[in-house]
């Protein structure tokens, strides 16, 4: 999977507030996109709809031609197994170790325990937290927690990787490392969408940038063809 399309998507909350207004966007399979915009622009709302954590009030979202609105519970579960998601508020299990947190998607997918250990350690190595594997998330710094969330998102080697402010609490060096990690996933074929308002960071990566403002797409900048790729 990888081809993602938003057709005239509107998200109106119960209080009448419209967080997304008629958003139509298309993300090709294997593409990498940064989603930017002011705080409250609708980035998180956009990603939540893509993760099926909420339904659009109007419009359609299709992934590889399948309308997400048509998915039943079972189909939804399998859809999510193919996604890697980094959440703005981490969503880590505070009572479980770092290792257990990162292992969760693999166990849910039914992977053998042997392979689970190998994959979890590989992912933790990528985010530089291998020596923290037996600690609890609450014992980690916010940036470290964020990296645990990233390890959990990439550990299943997803075809679609979605990240909401994954570098929000990281220093510039670490932020670049994480973006490079996402870039590597993109290079092996994953469709990557990253919400970030760190324009300085994403501006230098020569990738597509979509800017939202008050729930509407105001800019959609494609990378200059032929120019050097980051990383």
């Amino acid at each position: 999977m990888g081809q993602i399309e938003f057709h005239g998507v509107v998200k109106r909350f119960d209080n009448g507030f419209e967080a997304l207004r008629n958003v139509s966007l298309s993300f090709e399979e294997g593409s990498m996109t940064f989603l930017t915009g002011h705080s409250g622009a609708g980035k998180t709302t956009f990603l939540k709809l893509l993760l099926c954590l909420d339904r659009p009030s109007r419009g359609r979202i299709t992934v590889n031609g399948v309308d997400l609105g048509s998915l039943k519970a079972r189909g939804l579960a399998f859809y999510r197994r193919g996604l890697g998601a980094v959440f703005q508020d981490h969503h880590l299990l505070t009572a479980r170790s770092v290792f257990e947190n990162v292992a969760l998607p693999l166990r849910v997918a039914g992977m053998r325990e042997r392979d689970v250990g190998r994959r979890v350690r590989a992912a933790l190595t990528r985010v530089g937290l291998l020596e923290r594997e037996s600690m609890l998330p609450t014992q980690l710094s916010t940036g470290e927690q964020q990296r645990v969330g990233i390890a959990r998102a990439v550990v299943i080697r997803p075809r679609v990787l979605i990240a909401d402010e994954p570098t929000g609490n990281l220093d510039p060096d670490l932020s670049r490392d994480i973006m490079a990690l996402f870039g590597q996933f993109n290079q092996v074929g994953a469709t990557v969408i990253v919400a970030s308002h760190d324009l300085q960071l994403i501006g230098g990566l020569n990738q597509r940038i979509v800017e939202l403002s008050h729930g509407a797409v105001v800019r959609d900048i494609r990378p200059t063809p032929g120019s050097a790729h980051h990383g």
Partner: protein
Amino acid sequence: MAERGRRAGSKAPKEPWPKASVPGSWRRDHVRVAHDSFRHVSRRFGTTLLAWLLVGIALALPAALYLVQSGLAELTGRWDHRPGLSVYFEPGMGPDTLAAELREQFGVERVEVTTQEEALAEFGAQAQLADALGILEVNPLPASLRVVPVAGAGPADLERLAELARRHPGAAEVVVERTWLERVTAASVVARRLGAILGALFALGAVMVTATSVRLAIEGRLEELKVMKLVGASDGQVRRPFLYLGMLYGLGGGVLAAMLLSVGLTVVEAPLAGLLGSFEVEFEPAAFSLRFLAILLGAGTLLGVIGAVLAVRQRRASLDIL
């Protein structure tokens, strides 16, 4: 369950992303969940023990009634519902004349005679009071006879024979066993009905106990369940730990009920045997068979799972992240 269905199905998937799980994942998930549930139960042993105790008592009470009832039914069954008639004589009076008279009567199969000496010997042997009785200078036990009517003799026949015996000068007391038997039968009927009602009530209690315990467990893991769903856990996977938990609560309750019952039976067995022995009824320990044990454990497990299903249903909305 969804995962299993998929493996069996050969239809082309509607969704374009891979749906087939890793081979063996369904079994692995069960093993992992069972393991987790045992850990959950042993870590919160206080809560677990309380649940076991409540479920255990809820199962033990109706089960005990059932045992009593089946014991009574078995007793009356062994007597073949053959009513009888006993005549006890004044001290010093012999049963022989009346016995001869009764043997002549229509509807009498046989008449068993117990002399004063026989009564003393028997009572002494049974109650192991021979020595104590030996101290007495006179024999306090009356002579008696027992009339066994032919099969099919009705209450009217029995009443006619009783009337005859009452008129006999030496007869002190005439006991128509039918009334006693009817009481036992009636008691067994009452016990059965009471058992059914109590059984239903206590089963409901057991279900509510497990439902409450499981609901608490769900509440404690709500965050984890949401995250599990975020990374693609199916509804089946989310429910599974709680069904296992309900099963463990129910099964443990069943084991505890069996323990309570066997302790209870041991306590009442000896006195009951003595009591019934004095009625010349051979007492067999209540039917605590392997089958009964299996039913007890099975019922516990089933009720536990039902409780868990109810709890999961109730909490379904809060687990829905869409």
